[in-house]
């Protein structure tokens, strides 16, 4: 286990190192146009030390340290991603079970067709469609932002839902529901991708488990389908689902960047795109290293978690499988 962790960390460090070289060259090309190549190594060393101490430089656009900017906006993105994962589990598990139970049947066919559309639909267009229908046509949901701006909620955690509840404003529950409403459309858009993943996983493992003998034994004992799924099916399906969701984190984060742009969600997506427009190089570098490091760490953490809860996989590592 320890060796495995060290191995993974090694690769992580190498990848981040390569990314930092790219980022460094980007900055250098802009500032000095490669005029003096002699003290490049020295420059890079200084640059790396600054990066390691969390100093990504000052954003030309906002005038604040880049890391500070990132840390203020990133919770918004994270909140959206987490909500999307929760929704994907809430929707994905029951539909996955339904599809798994009726493999080849019409329910399965219907669910899988919707799933196929779900992976094929361009995120930004889906977002625009939802916005056109639910906000502009029906007027049910707001089109943008995290919360009605007349609510004044002090920032504590950066997660709006928590912050509203933590605040002591008289309207905190109202504000909480208001942020839920603002979350609704972006969350649906963002949940499309992980939901399809959950449905596929659950469907596959339920389908597999249901053919096994112990299930037949359980049926013989007189348990109904609901009980069987609760006791046996899910217990075997869920441990596989959660890590696979973790591995989706990178894709969800990227999708979130697009979703945020459509719904003007004040997260890392619009921030990054805006900085690319403005050619704010320290912000671009900082953002890129931060996102990459975050995704890589999230994946690693998922793998570790998977190892901890799934002893079978641990054996695989040592080639015992």
């Amino acid at each position: 286990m320890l060796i495995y962790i060290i191995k993974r960390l090694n690769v992580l460090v190498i990848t981040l190192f390569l990314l930092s070289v790219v980022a460094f060259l980007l900055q250098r090309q802009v500032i000095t146009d490669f005029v003096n190549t002699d003290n490049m190594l020295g420059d890079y060393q200084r640059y790396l030390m600054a990066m390691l101490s969390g100093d990504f430089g000052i954003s030309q656009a906002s005038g604040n340290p880049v890391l500070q900017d990132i840390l203020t906006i990133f919770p918004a993105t994270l909140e959206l991603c987490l909500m999307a994962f929760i929704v994907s589990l809430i929707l994905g598990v029951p539909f996955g079970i339904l599809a798994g139970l009726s493999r080849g049947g019409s329910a399965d066919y219907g669910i899988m067709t919707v799933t196929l559309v779900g992976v094929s639909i361009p995120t930004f267009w889906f977002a625009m469609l939802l916005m056109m229908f639910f906000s502009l046509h029906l007027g049910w949901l707001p089109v943008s932002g995290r919360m009605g701006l007349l609510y004044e909620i002090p920032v504590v955690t950066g997660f709006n839902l928590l912050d509203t509840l933590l605040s002591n404003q008289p309207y905190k529950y109202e504000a909480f529901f208001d942020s839920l409403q603002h979350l609704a459309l972006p969350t649906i858009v963002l949940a499309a991708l992980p939901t399809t993943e959950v449905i596929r996983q659950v469907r596959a493992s339920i389908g597999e488990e249901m053919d096994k003998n112990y299930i037949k034994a359980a049926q013989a004992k007189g348990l109904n389908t609901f009980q069987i799924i609760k006791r046996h099916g899910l217990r075997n399906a869920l441990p596989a689902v959660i890590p696979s969701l973790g591995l989706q984190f990178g894709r969800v984060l990227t999708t979130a960047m697009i979703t945020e742009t459509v719904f003007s969600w004040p997260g890392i997506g619009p921030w990054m795109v805006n900085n690319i427009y403005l050619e704010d190089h320290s912000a671009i570098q900082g953002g890129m290293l931060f996102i990459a490091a975050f995704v890589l760490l999230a994946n690693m953490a998922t793998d570790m978690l998977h190892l901890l809860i799934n002893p079978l996989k641990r054996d695989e590592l040592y080639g015992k499988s």
Partner: protein
Amino acid sequence: MIRLFALLFSLPMLASCMQESQVLNKGLVYCSSGNPTNFNPQLSQTGDSLDISSQLYNTLVRLDPNTQGITSGLARKWHVSRDGLRYQFELRRGVAFHSTAYFTPKRTLNADDVVFSFRRIIHPTHPFHSASGGSYPFFNNTQFSQLIKNVKKLGPYKVEFELHRPDTSLLANLATEFAVILSAEYGHHLQKHGKNNQLDQLPIGTGPYQFKQFIPDNLIRFERHWGYWEGGAPMPQLVFDITTSPTLRLAKLITGECDAMAYPAASQANVISDHPDLLMNVETGYKVSYWAFNHDKPPFNNAQVRKALATAIDRKTILKAVYFNTGVVSHGLLPPTSWAYNPYLDDYAYSPKLARKLLQESGIKLPLSLTIYTSSSPEPFNPNSFKTAEFIQRDLQKIGVNAKIVVLEPHHLHSSIVNGEYDTLVSGWSAVTSDPDNFFRPQYSCNAIANHTNTSRWCSAKLDGLIDQAVKQNRMVPRIRIYREIQEKLRNHLPLLPLAHSLQLQAYRRDVHGLKSSPFGGVNFSEAYRD
């Protein structure tokens, strides 16, 4: 299980039923178009700063919205000396400044504040002159510093402006949203703590709302200034929701997330007027879009070539396609609502045939190729400069002129204008006073080349003489005569081709009342409320 599902799906519905609430009725939300660079309109000339100005500040005199005449503001009355060189203002008493978390004023407005506010602009040695960049675009464009000899205090509530030469446009300039009065006490307080730049970032003014919070790209929060000298505003809170995309601004207006929106796009005018919940104010703005010819780049210094190109342009189509008919074709630079407008100018009517003939007669080497520089963002005077350039390109193609469009971000475009890189330029001008001088001086005077507002880079001593002569004249009839002469000269020389005057649109929800807007852009919430 099914019950759980039903509950989950009904949650958002429940939430949407709770929209009627007390908090929402205690404030207004305005969808503004961008981040202000600072909170002092003296330093800026963008629409976003204009929108902030009337909430935070007041000016000495104001424009009457109906007659466009000058009325009293912070100055109760004023007096102009016979020779037109001295303007004395008597200030209102008991005008309170904002009291905020970062500054508590100890006194009300007096002459020191007025002297402080204007000396800061005109005296290069003033401690605040170079704070926040030290550039005062509006005052540069109107050559304010060259005009004002001194601003001095005559008594606790009496101020005098001394001029180098008579200028009848001074009062109109002082009535703009840029000539705001700051607090001298706050200035001294900041100076003592060595935080001069804060003057323009954390504002203290006398306006109906005071500053509370600013989150870039997100919001500006104001709260009611109880001590406002005209009586506290009806709403305790005012929030600017910073939304750069016009589509999103309209979307928010439709869903009710905003109560009013800044700069509706021309294409949205029909949608707004057809929508049952929305209302729209329409005014002819003091704005013009034009196509300028760079006189430093031959053959565009050749009047015959310019006339040929001008005749080739179908401005009616541009008006229809770009402005969605929310504007009028421009004949001369002045809008038809201006008192100096010359209705007898005959214009360069669209005729590709004539254009081709003129071009051939001009004796330049054909085929002609040129560049059209333009901005990638919508401007107050042109909803879509790039699209305008595309139409010009298409029209030029018909007479065998090959045009290349260079579309740049506003700040890149500005540096191209500074360097004079373009052959031609699609741009425009938003006047901030109704005085015709505010059109002619920035666009055509020689000094304005250095200010980068004279984009044709044409300098004529004779025209400069006429422009100066017009502002010295304080009788209307001769003044109008001079402006008509100027317009005829411009028509014949044609340094730039005026394209269209846009309408000033203001959209808001039906339940909002008391919203005031000016024909020069900018919005005023001092009396706005919602039922």
